[in-house]
């Protein structure tokens, strides 16, 4: 898999950390955060805990490096991205969140937007899944999470269906593993890699090994 850095446009050749069963939160982090945003974040965190999914944000790791580079690598490592959008947020914050959502979508991650009733979704993003923060919020959030776990099953099926293309098969298993964190899936990915080494070029092999050695 070839990934291009949003910082300099070069191909990513570093190994990054995989974080199965983690969800990256896209929301306002600095400045005066509205009570509604804090309330949504707390509700989300509580619900995710029930599924043993850890909520992280851009402040979760201190790298000392470029902030966007850090966010990008966190996005690469997690299976899920959830955005919180409220009317109180500045245009700059909303723009940053949509940029991150775009990164998530381009990397085949599972995303959803949680929005307050009074926040209007831009027309280009009408296909983005979103749930409103209202009295059925928890129910809708659980529906989304359950659907994400159904996607894990779908990805393992796709890996089997596409077994004639070992690189695609490996990648579907990688995505399934990120959602569930099941070691058996990592073992399956290793089997695919070891049985089809000749199908992986040097770069793909490096990417595959990076995933297999990630703890």
């Amino acid at each position: 898999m070839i990934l291009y850095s949003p910082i300099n446009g070069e191909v990513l050749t570093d190994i990054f950390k995989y974080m199965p069963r983690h969800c990256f939160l896209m929301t306002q982090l600095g400045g005066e955060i509205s009570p509604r945003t804090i309330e949504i974040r707390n509700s989300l965190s509580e619900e995710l805990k029930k599924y043993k999914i850890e909520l992280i944000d851009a402040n979760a790791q201190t790298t000392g490096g470029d902030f966007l580079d850090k966010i990008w690598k966190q996005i690469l490592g997690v299976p899920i991205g959830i955005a919180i959008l409220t009317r109180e947020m500045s245009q700059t914050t909303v723009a940053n969140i949509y940029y991150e959502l775009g990164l998530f979508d381009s990397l085949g991650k599972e995303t959803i937007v949680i929005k307050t009733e009074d926040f209007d979704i831009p027309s280009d993003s009408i296909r983005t899944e979103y749930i409103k923060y209202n009295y059925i919020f928890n129910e809708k959030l659980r529906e989304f999470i359950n659907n994400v776990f159904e996607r894990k099953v779908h990805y393992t099926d796709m890996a089997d269906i596409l077994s004639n293309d070992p690189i695609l098969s490996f990648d579907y298993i990688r995505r399934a593993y990120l959602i569930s964190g099941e070691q058996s899936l990592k073992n399956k990915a290793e089997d695919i890699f070891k049985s089809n080494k000749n199908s992986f070029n040097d770069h793909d092999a490096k990417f595959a090994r990076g995933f297999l050695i990630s703890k």
Partner: protein
Amino acid sequence: MATTKINIVQTKNPRTGKYVKINRSEGRIITSKKSDGPYKGVPIYRKPNNAK
């Protein structure tokens, strides 16, 4: 003339709720259905019995 059997199946993508048609022989996704329900005449993928 020898013929090669083309192995095409379909499976439902839970993200969209729509069926996806895949050519297993080539390891290629052919198309995704726009409307509800499965493609006619295309077998739906079933997990092998020995799958974990």
